[in-house]
């Protein structure tokens, strides 16, 4: 095999070469779209041309075997044109609607469900978890799989009041848009790290470690004659930054790591302004392989929302209308002191009016 010529700073390939001819022709000249059935969209151009999109869910973690199979399907149905969405669904771009049923069948046989459009639950944006990340308080793919198995009907149907975006992140870094999702599932460490004082002096630099802590909880200390550190537990909020710079400071904890649930965030500017997700459940245990407590909690929230919200009302908009007291009442989730903000701008979240429902 010839040695490849190494180049730098060439950037990604120009997208234009990947656009199907119908898109090249109608670029920027689309008139409207419709969603004839779940997972299938038709975009109609001003020219009258029609582009059909078939969207399928994926676990995001894809084997090249699967990607090659997708490539084959693209060749078979869409002259090789394919794309992914911002929520890692795969989309096949067709011009001939008669091919849609066969494509759907092939996809479903391969194990990839068609859906995720309109007022559905689309794929869960998520992160690495135990598959690849060092700070993960839980696994990502396993929780997502467990959730989507139960939420599946909402992926292949469009029966919710509005779009419902679920996101997952395995630690407070929140890779993704967990902080602005209708329902966010977030791995949390709940205890200060433990320190391996024997190993630490050998593998870490104390000053770097001390300065890695955002709350100043880490102080140099001599332990058994070795230069090590100690952690002021009262000051630690379990962010794991210290573990990132020093593997001897262990944030991961099999007993106490777990999962929190957040609700009511959104990103779009439609109707209401973008919103952060707010804490619904501070802690649920890590219970692989199926995380039943987490799945049950999320399904419950989805169901209560689905039964109570008005058409077009996102989860956070529904809660804003009914008020948080009623959200807790309807879902049966207990309200605790953990729900009350005590961080920097905490005072801004207190209820400063008597507009209450009694």
């Amino acid at each position: 095999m010839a040695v490849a010529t190494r180049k730098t700073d060439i950037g990604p390939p120009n997208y234009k070469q990947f656009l199907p001819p119908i898109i090249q022709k109608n670029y920027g000249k689309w008139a409207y779209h419709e969603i004839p059935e779940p997972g299938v969209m038709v975009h109609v151009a001003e020219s009258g041309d029609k582009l059909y999109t078939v969207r399928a869910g994926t676990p995001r973690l894809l084997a090249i075997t699967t990607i090659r199979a997708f490539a084959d399907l693209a060749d078979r149905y869409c002259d090789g044109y394919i794309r992914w969405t911002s929520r890692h669904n795969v989309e096949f771009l067709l011009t001939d609607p008669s091919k849609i049923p066969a494509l759907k069948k092939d996809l479903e046989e391969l194990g990839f469900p068609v859906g995720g459009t309109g007022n559905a639950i689309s794929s869960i944006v998520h992160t690495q978890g135990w598959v690849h990340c060092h700070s993960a308080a839980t696994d990502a793919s396993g929780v997502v799989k467990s959730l989507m198995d139960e939420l599946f009907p909402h992926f292949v149907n469009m029966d919710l009041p509005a779009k419902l975006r679920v996101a997952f992140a395995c630690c407070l870094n929140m890779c993704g848009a967990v902080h602005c999702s209708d329902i966010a599932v977030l791995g949390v460490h709940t205890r200060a790290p433990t320190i391996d004082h024997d190993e630490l002096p050998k593998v870490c630099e104390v000053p770097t470690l001390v300065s890695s802590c955002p709350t100043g909880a880490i102080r140099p200390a001599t332990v058994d004659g070795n230069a090590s550190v100690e952690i002021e537990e009262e000051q630690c909020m379990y962010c794991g930054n210290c573990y990132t710079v020093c593997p001897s400071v262990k944030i991961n904890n099999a007993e106490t790591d777990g999962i929190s649930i957040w609700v009511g965030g959104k990103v779009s500017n439609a109707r209401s302004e973008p919103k952060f997700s707010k804490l619904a459940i501070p802690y649920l245990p890590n219970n692989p392989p199926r995380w039943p407590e987490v799945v049950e909690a999320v399904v419950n929230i989805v169901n209560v929302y689905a039964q109570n919200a008005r058409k077009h009302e996102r989860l956070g908009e529904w809660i804003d209308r009914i008020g948080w007291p009623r959200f807790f009442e309807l879902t049966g989730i207990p309200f605790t002191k953990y729900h009350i903000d005590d961080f920097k701008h905490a005072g801004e979240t207190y209820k400063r009016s008597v507009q209450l429902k009694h």
Partner: protein
Amino acid sequence: MSEKNRATPLLDELEKGPWPSFVKEIKKESERPMVRDLLGLLERSYEEHIGHWKHGGLVGVMGYGGGVIGRYSDLPEEFPEIAEFHTYRVNQPSAWFYTSDALRTLCDIWDRHGSGLTNMHGSTGDIIFLGSKTEALEPCFADLTEAGFDLGGSGSDVRTPSCCVGPARCEWACYDTLEACYDITQTYQDELHRPAFPYKYKFKFAGCPNDCVASIARSDMSVIGTWKDNIQIDQEQVREYAAGGTDIEAEICEMCPTGCITWNGEQLVIDNSECVKCMHCINVMPRALKPGKERGATILIGAKAPIIGGALLSSVFVPFLEMEPPYEDLKELAEAIWDFWGEYGKNRERVGEFIQRVGLGNFLEEIGLDPVPEMVAHPRTNPYIFFDEELEEDEDE
């Protein structure tokens, strides 16, 4: 370890159920020893309820500071094949369009050099090649660049920009998100590959206020399409929606955030001077309504995840900017920001946090942008104004 079939009873549970299974995906590549060790390590995590990875030191490709995330297992003896298990971040094409050929090229390269496992795509937008040994990094990079692909960002640099499908397939795109994303990515190749900032800097391009790339939540510079003039209305189509069952009063008029739409059963009237371009009415009746014709984008700055001062959404910097190539105004703004933040930002201080620290008013003065009321939800409520010496003169103009 690395024996062919370590039992994975817990993971096997996750092969069941209707949703596609990541375990099945991993197993598809399990002829590779690396992947067998991954399965073993993961099963172990499932048994023990704990992860087994350590953050990497500096690994990467020559001449680049970003694009590779170093990762090491904390059980290297038991799982030697994944003692090193780095990820490549390969810069995706705008809006994640591919041809089957391009996909096969990528697969072939990753087949040769790594685990055969990917993420399509990472949360920032990259193609993620998941699991590579250190020795494989350079040859893989050579193959990738020869095939026309390059690495994306990591560390304190411009991160891989991304964009929504925009004009390629969406009737609402108010500017060309794909071209803007591509142009910015190409212009800032050096900034993308060689970390020189206080911290990461992300660009995301959304064609309209629906923000299908979550740019307002996840990018230091959010470019969100919008328009200035009147929403285009096809009254005939409005009536068809009404006939087809859309309750225009309840679903449109009452849900408009400014209440600027009225419907008399025949005509839909929008008071466009009150419209805040939220998209709701257009979303509900795509055949009847369209954004106006005078289009551009709002530029917002400073979104980020919570570490450390709490999460931020981006905030308005330029209420309306025309978005035509070569995007000079946008680049000027980005560069002015980088100059000031680059000089005074603290290590690991995102630009959104920096602005809060120095004060938005001062920040604007430094980068040479005039304050406008669109930048704030409301003016200050506290009286702690730091008056400049030349206050009186200011007021006299």
